[in-house]
């Protein structure tokens, strides 16, 4: 279903491209106390590009889930290029958000969180965040956000015009031994792809510190019995 030219901002072609831009934003600016969500797409257009692929131009607003419903909306613009290659390759994103530096810094919470869990005795381990009823303890929230940011690396990489990913749940979190002063966390996350409605499971190893931000070191797709469906791409 091709759409070129101006797009209806609330409909799926624009929304999918905006979600890709969101994943990109979170990989760069997400933290235990900051995860961005899409609030609204204001304008969108798409065009085929010479090298083979489709480029979306987007004007949209995001909010920080970390600051609750009180947070202000940030205005962003992005170019999202979905390449047309034989094998799937990740979309390319160029992104500008207004006033990114001006939103309330989370440095204090980041540092306190880091100090608490970087100690060698720390062995955080948890499952089902949130649980079936949507419950998540206060203590687990920064870990959920970290998982969401780490998952954004995968969601970004796996995205195409035919996918729309969210993180459905964190199946498990296991803290690993800290390395080079980075918090090391192994996550198993469940991703939900909207068009196919599939739940896709990934295990990943991520590091975080206030200075270096989130880095994803290893990812591994995991089959889910009994379907064992591979990711859409």
């Amino acid at each position: 279903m091709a759409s070129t030219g101006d797009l209806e901002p609330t409909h799926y072609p624009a929304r999918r491209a905006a979600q890709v831009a969101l994943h990109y934003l979170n990989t760069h600016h997400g933290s235990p106390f900051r995860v961005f969500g899409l609030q609204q797409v204001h304008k969108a257009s798409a065009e085929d590009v010479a090298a083979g692929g489709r480029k979306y131009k987007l004007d949209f607003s995001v909010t920080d889930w970390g600051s609750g419903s009180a947070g202000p909306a940030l205005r962003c613009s992005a170019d999202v290029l979905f390449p047309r290659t034989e094998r799937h390759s990740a979309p390319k994103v160029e992104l500008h958000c207004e006033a990114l530096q001006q939103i309330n810094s989370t440095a204090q919470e980041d540092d306190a969180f880091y100090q608490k869990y970087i100690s060698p005795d720390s062995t955080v381990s948890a499952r089902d965040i949130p649980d079936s009823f949507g419950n998540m303890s206060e203590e687990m929230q920064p870990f959920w956000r970290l998982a969401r940011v780490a998952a954004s690396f995968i969601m970004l990489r796996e995205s195409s015009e035919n996918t729309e990913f969210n993180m459905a749940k964190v199946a498990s979190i296991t803290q690993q031994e800290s390395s080079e002063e980075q918090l090391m966390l192994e996550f198993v996350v469940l991703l939900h792809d909207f068009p196919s409605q599939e739940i896709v499971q990934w295990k990943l190893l991520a590091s975080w510190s206030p200075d270096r931000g989130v880095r994803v070191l290893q990812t591994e797709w995991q089959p889910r019995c009994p379907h064992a469906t591979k990711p859409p791409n």
Partner: protein
Amino acid sequence: MILARKFYSSKMKGLLVLTALFVAVFGKKTFEGDQVLRITAKNEAQIFLLKELSEQEHLGLDFWREPVHESLPVDVYVPFHSLQAVRVFLRYNQIQYNVMIMDVQDLLDDEEREMVKYRTIPRSTDDFVYTAYHDLNSIYSFMDMLVAENSNLVSKIVIGQSYENRPLNVLKFSTGANRPGIWFDTGIHSREWVTQASGIWFAKKIVTDYGRDPVLTDILNNYDIFLEIVTNPDGFAYTHSRDRMWRKTRKPNSGSSCVGVDPNRNWDAGFGGGGSSSNPCTETYRGPSAHSEPEVKAIVDFVKSHGKLKAFVSIHSYSQMLLYPYGYTSTPAKDKAELHELAKKAIASLQSLYNTRYTYGSIITTIYQASGGTIDWTYNQGIKYSYTFELRDTGRYGFLLPANQIVPTAEETWLALMAIMEHTRNNPY
């Protein structure tokens, strides 16, 4: 688990709680995998070894019964990270033991569940906890209570059986015979828990507002309302017992190890087209043929035999949308303009309550191509006001919407449903 129950006593519960606190202080976050072992020493030498074991602080052991004498059992709480070491030690020294508590976290969870259950068995629909998610038995009890409390207004119809032989219950709200009808269903996709929970709230809302709210009263004096709260009970039971993310029915597929059909791709409207899958191992598997699923067939039969339904709303989650036909084709519905305007009005009502933003439009343009969908079929049957909702949220919690959002979601959605019902009432056809 049976082993644990036999030995479980209130003293042990006390010790367990104490241990839990003790261990929590030392930075453990969960009791998963922790065990309690009952050790039987056969001589003084073994008692001596166990005393030595108890001095290994790094193991984090907690002796509920200290090693004293070989005639007395030794009970020890072993955190998960020390289990292997302790087991090796016991085996090497040929010290007998058995596992009293397989997994402490499981025990705590069971305990919690028992407590919650005991606290909240409602005696009436006024007692019922609308701000929590309930299991199938609780919801079926709710229906029976509602009927018993409002027998002049509500009755329960069983329109069929699910694959696993669960009743497909529909609540009928009616104030007179031979009326045209309005249909709502929730929970056709079992993992979309906020929908069944909202359905319960709608049922209570209807009986509360009849005779109080003039608009609803007028609607019910002219139309029957049919509400199927758990449209996919097999799937729903499965989300409680095995897999919270289960979407489809639970019917096995011949020639495949994969179970289930997507009940929202199984209808005879563009059946087999793009936006549905022929692979039984996928979430949008359409099934071997249209209406192959008893859960779907039951509604099809009901709609056809009723013959006078004027509005049909099928409720899903998530993504905050109000959608009208078609999903299987990009040809616009004949009544698109009217459906679009009504959707706009309904969404405005919804948003007026908590400022929740919804998107609206036809299925195929707004969300994705989907063939074999419910409301495409009902629309083609002549039910003009056919709509699908996608309730909260937009992906932050997705299917795992916190229970504290059930009532706000139901309240705002109700305003949209009222707008649709009112328009139906004012525009008979």
